[in-house]
Every structure is written in structure tokens, then in C-alpha cells.
């Protein structure tokens, strides 16, 4: 049996399952309980599991992320929700200087089995302080694992796998995906988080992306097909550690690639992906690599300016078309 559910519901169900299966698991974050969850992911969970397992935190990101680290070191399995990635900057010290380093600094004596979830991404006219894509910053840091569910199945399954991981895992949930729906089997559950996934097979060009830009890449692939170009869409899923083999395999097949990333182009995660292709598959390439990233500007409020700043289907189609024609 199967049923249709949204990305948001899938996240909710994953929390329900995690809280049911392991008494060490708890969820903490701003407004996860009484408010009903900023994005309604945790709505109703406290009614079922109680306020000491679905914990409203005061506005103190560094404090409650740090507490999550301590709780994880002490034997619990916290899920820390940081409302959105922009607010995680107040907790950057705890994440980068503590969560990521404790295992190493202690000579392997300590593990930090912590899951941090963050909403992210632009597209809702929330302007320059509420629209960030910074997953590449976190993917920069050894000691962390970084995942970006782009499908309903991954939203349903990645949390459970992340909780089973002995080290800190950060899950980026793009707000543009929350309303996405898909049909999942009733027994849908944990998914592996070690590999990228080909979301659409193709032979002429690889569109490589993750998270919130997967729908744009898929739409671009449909439009390219109509124009006679066969695009393969690769969803990276996990940004650290990166599945190099999947990237190389796709590029070795298509010999061309466009990397789509909502980060700003300078120092983007797309830059890392392109470099790996250059290092590992340079002689497979028939055309220069292309990146479609956000424009180098804080995200503007006005709708048309915001759209102009973000990667678009048209830009992806254009970049793919240009390199597909390249001999």
C-alpha cells in the first residue's frame, strides 16, 4: 500500500517514528511545541510525546545547539531544529568549534551523535536576512556530515539514518520543497545517505544539483528534451562526504555538466563539484563546465529582483544548450 504525502508531512512522520522508536531521541528548537513549529513540521508532536521530548527553546541558538552537543555526548539523541540557516550563524561557534571537532580533539574518545535540522533557501520575498543558502559552508568542515533531502522519500528517510549516525549530521530542508508531494509506500522509512541518485537518465549533459533546486533541474531537463537534448539529472543528496564516483560516472557518460547551486557563485559548493570533475574526469569532458548560481548580491525583497538573483530554469536550459552544442 502507498499514500500521497507532502515533504512537510514526511518530515513530521519521520520525527514521529524517531520519537516512538528511541526514548533517547528528543526535539528541541524555537517554537517547535506551542507555536506548532515554524513550518508546522512538529505540529502535534508534543501532544503525543510530551513537552519534555518536544522542547521549546528560548531565542538562544548558541545555547540550545551547545546543549544539544552536550546531550549527544552524554548519551541522548537530540534533534536540534534551528529555525532557518540564517539563525544558525549565531550557533556557528558551537557547530564548527565544538560539534565538528570533539571527536578528533579527544583522540577519538567522544562521539557527538547530534542531528541539526535547518530550513533554508530563498523564493518567498523574505529579503536579505532570511533567504540564505549556506550548506556549502557547513560542507567545508571535516567532522560534520551534511545532507539535503530533495524528495519526499528523502525527507521521510534521511532523519532516521542521520540519527543512527554516531557523528553530527546537518539536514538542510529548502523551504521551497515543503509543499512538494509524492506517493510513498506505507512502510517507507530510513534511506541510505552515502550515495547520490540519478533522478533522470540522460546522455547529452549532466545537470548536477541537490535540495531545493532539484525541481528546477528536472523541469529544465523536460524542456531540453523537447529541444532534442537528453539531460541526466544527478541529485547529490549528501554534500559531505561527496559521492565523487556518482559524479564521475555521470560526466563520463554525458561528457558535459552544469552544476546548479543557490549559493552565491564565488566560493559556492558548485565550485567544489566542478573542481572534483576537473581533478577526476578532465579527459571525459567535451565542453567547459558551467555553473548556475545566485547572483552576487544579498537577496533583494522585490519579487522581480529576487527572481533575477536566483538560479532559474531558463538559465539552466541556456547553459545546458550552449555546452551541448559545443563540439
Amino acid at each position, binding site marked *: 500500500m502507498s499514500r500521497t504525502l507532502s515533504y512537510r508531512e514526511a518530515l513530521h512522520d519521520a520525527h514521529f517514528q524517531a520519537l516512538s522508536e528511541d526514548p533517547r531521541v528528543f526535539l528541541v528548537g524555537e517554537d517547535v511545541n506551542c*507555536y506548532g513549529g515554524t513550518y508546522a513540521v512538529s505540529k502535534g508532536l508534543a501532544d503525543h510525546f510530551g513537552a519534555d521530548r518536544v522542547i*521549546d527553546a528560548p531565542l538562544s541558538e548558541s545555547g540550545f545547539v551547545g546543549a544539544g552537543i552536550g546531550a549527544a555526548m552524554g548519551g541522548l539523541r537530540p534533534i536540534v531544529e534551528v529555525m532557518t540557516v540564517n539563525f544558525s550563524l549565531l550557533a556557528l561557534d558551537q557547530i564548527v568549534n565544538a560539534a565538528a571537532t570533539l571527536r578528533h580533539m579527544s583522540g577519538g574518545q567522544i562521539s557527538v551523535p547530534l542531528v541539526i535540522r535547518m530550513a533554508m533557501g530563498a523564493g518567498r520575498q523574505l529579503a536579505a536576512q532570511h533567504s540564505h543558502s549556506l550548506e556549502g559552508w557547513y560542507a567545508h568542515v571535516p567532522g560534520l556530515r551534511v545532507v539535503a533531502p530533495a524528495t519526499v522519500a528523502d525527507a521521510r528517510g534521511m532523519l532516521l539514518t542521520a540519527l543512527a549516525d554516531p557523528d553530527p549530521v546537518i539536514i538542510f530542508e529548502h523551504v521551497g520543497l515543503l509543499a512538494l508531494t509524492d506517493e510513498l509506500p506505507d512502510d517507507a522509512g530510513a534511506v541510505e545517505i552515502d550515495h547520490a541518485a540519478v533522478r533522470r537518465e540522460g546522455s547529452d549533459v549532466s545537470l548536477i544539483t541537490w535540495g531545493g533546486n532539484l525541481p528546477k533541474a528536472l523541469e529544465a531537463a523536460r524542456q531540453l528534451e523537447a529541444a532534442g537534448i537528453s539531460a541526466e539529472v544527478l541529485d547529490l543528496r549528501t554534500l559531505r562526504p561527496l559521492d565523487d564516483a556518482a559524479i564521475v560516472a555521470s560526466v563520463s557518460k554525458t561528457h558535459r555538466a552544469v552544476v546548479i547551486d543557490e549559493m552565491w557563485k564565488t566560493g559556492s559548493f558548485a565550485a567544489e563539484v566542478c573542481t572534483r570533475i576537473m581533478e577526476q574526469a578532465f579527459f571525459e569532458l567535451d565542453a567547459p563546465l558551467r555553473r548556475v548560481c545566485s547572483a552576487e548580491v544579498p537577496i533583494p*525583497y522585490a*519579487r522581480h529582483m529576487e527572481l533575477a538573483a536566483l538560479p532559474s530554469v531558463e538559465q539552466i536550459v541556456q547553459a545546458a544548450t550552449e555546452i551541448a552544442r559545443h563540439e
Partner: protein
Amino acid sequence: MSTLPDQARCHALYRQMLRIRRFEERCGELYKQQKIRGFLHLYIGEEAIATGVIDRLEPRDVISATYREHGHALVRGVSMRAIMAEMYGKVAGCSRGRGGSMHLFDVQRGFLGGHAIVGAGLPIAVGLAMARKRLDQGAISVCFFGEGAAAEGEFHEALNLAALWELPVLFVCENNGYAMGTALARSESQTDIHLKAQAYKIRAEVVDGMDVLAVDEAAQRAISAIRADLKPYFLECRTYRFRPHSMFDPELYREQAEVSEWKKKDPLLTFRAQCETAGLLDEAAVQAMEQEIASEIEDAVQFSEQAEWEAESDLLKDVYTPRGAP
């Protein structure tokens, strides 16, 4: 209750509060019509605070506030047209359409944001005070923020710095009892916020934030004390927001009865009644104000409707200061 000032001042205070109220009611409607987008946080119920404090400032003073700052900008004299156009996302807006409702700026009027990271405005206000103190002795930096900020480290760091470095900052905590859905008692072990300021040796008092005269008096006390010795002062104004946190809030966390109870203390209603009893305000005067304000709002809406969209080719503008500019 405080004693009433003269009639002209009573009218000015009432008119200012009414202006904020009507402006924001219109903003709420425009949001439903999708003219205003993104996040919109209304100040309705809290008007007495911005009105009472900002009115006592001088042009050389500077103000910083949060995302709930339309009222503050209006009282400070940022034009209603420029505020409305900003919310429309038009280039004629006070932040050229780049900021929206949460990021109103008008440097000419010393209105320096519009900060939407909770707590982040306080250290910035401390720095502004350093600059004011060195460049214009006697000028002060006023910082508005919600009680939710008191849980952030930056609140504590900023208070300590302001006290330690003896800086002319007026901290105005708009304690409306909730940070989104989190009631104060569910987020603070010590709910008397002003005591936290006292712990940093900052002069601090609690003010009835629903009473514009109480705010006005406290602001005068605080401002003259700061101008005299250039040291910080802290006002905890107890208030209530009548509307949801933003336009997305289903308000699951509070009872309608609580909202109704606070609405009895509506700063416009209570102040109007007080003035009427004293014979300082009547229906005709209020009607005249309503009409003036309605036409000011209508003008701002028409202006915003007709204003231009910024050209897309300007997308990369204002990321850096042009070289050679001051």
C-alpha cells in the same frame, strides 16, 4: 495615571498613535491582496511606545529597531509614501525596494533599520552610541527590541559593553509577553527583564507600555539622564500585540480571552477616554484626524501603486559603495 499635558500635545500624541494604527490596518489589507509580500509584522497594540519615546528625541539622535518597525519609522518622520513604497518593493521605497517591511532605513532621519535577526540590533546600537559620543557629544542611540531578545547572548554582551564603556544608549524593551508563540515565562527564568539590565549596573525601570503618557514621562527621564552623563538607560515597556506575530501565525499558543482582556487597555482607547474626560479631545477633532490620516494613507497607496519597479539591470547595485564616494 499621569497628568495630561496641554491640548496641542494631547492631540499630537493621539494623532501619531492613530496614524500608526490606521496605516498598519491598511498594510494588513494590502497583504491579503498580495500587494505586500514576505513577512509582515504588525505593531498594533504597541503604538504608545514608539510614539512616547521617539517624539522626545532630537534629529541628531539615531534609532535602530526590529522587523516590527513601521510605527517607529512613521513617528521618526520617514515619509509614509517611502515606507509604503518599500513594502510594495518599489524603487521609490525608503530602502529602494531591497529591504521590504522588515528592513526600513532612512539615514537622513537617523533611522538605521529594520534588523530581523533577534538581538542583533543591540550591539549595533552600542557601536552607534560610540560614534555619537565621539562625534557629537550629547547625541544618543536608541534601540528598540522585543523581550525575546533577552534570551540571546548578544543582549547580555551589548548591555555589558554599554555599561562598561559608558555609552549613551537608550535600550527600549518592548515586552509584549511573547516571542512568536513562546510566552515569556516559558523562556526566561527571570521574567523581570529590567532586573537583567540592573545586573549590569544600568539604570532601569518598568513602564506601562499601554499608556502613552507613562512612556513619554519615562522617556524624558531617561533621555535627560543619558544626555547629562552619557551613560545607558533601560526601559522595559510592558505591552501586548493584538495581532498574530506575522501574517503566517495561526495563534495556537494564546487564548482569545487574553487578547480581549488586553484590548481593554488599548493605548488609543484609554488615552482618548482620558483626554475626553478632561475636555481636551472630542469626536469632531478625532474625525478630523481620521480624515487627514485616511487621505495620507490613500496618497501613500496611490504613490506606491504608480511608482516604478527597479530595472532588473540594476540587480548588482548597492552591494559595495562606489569607489570615490564618501
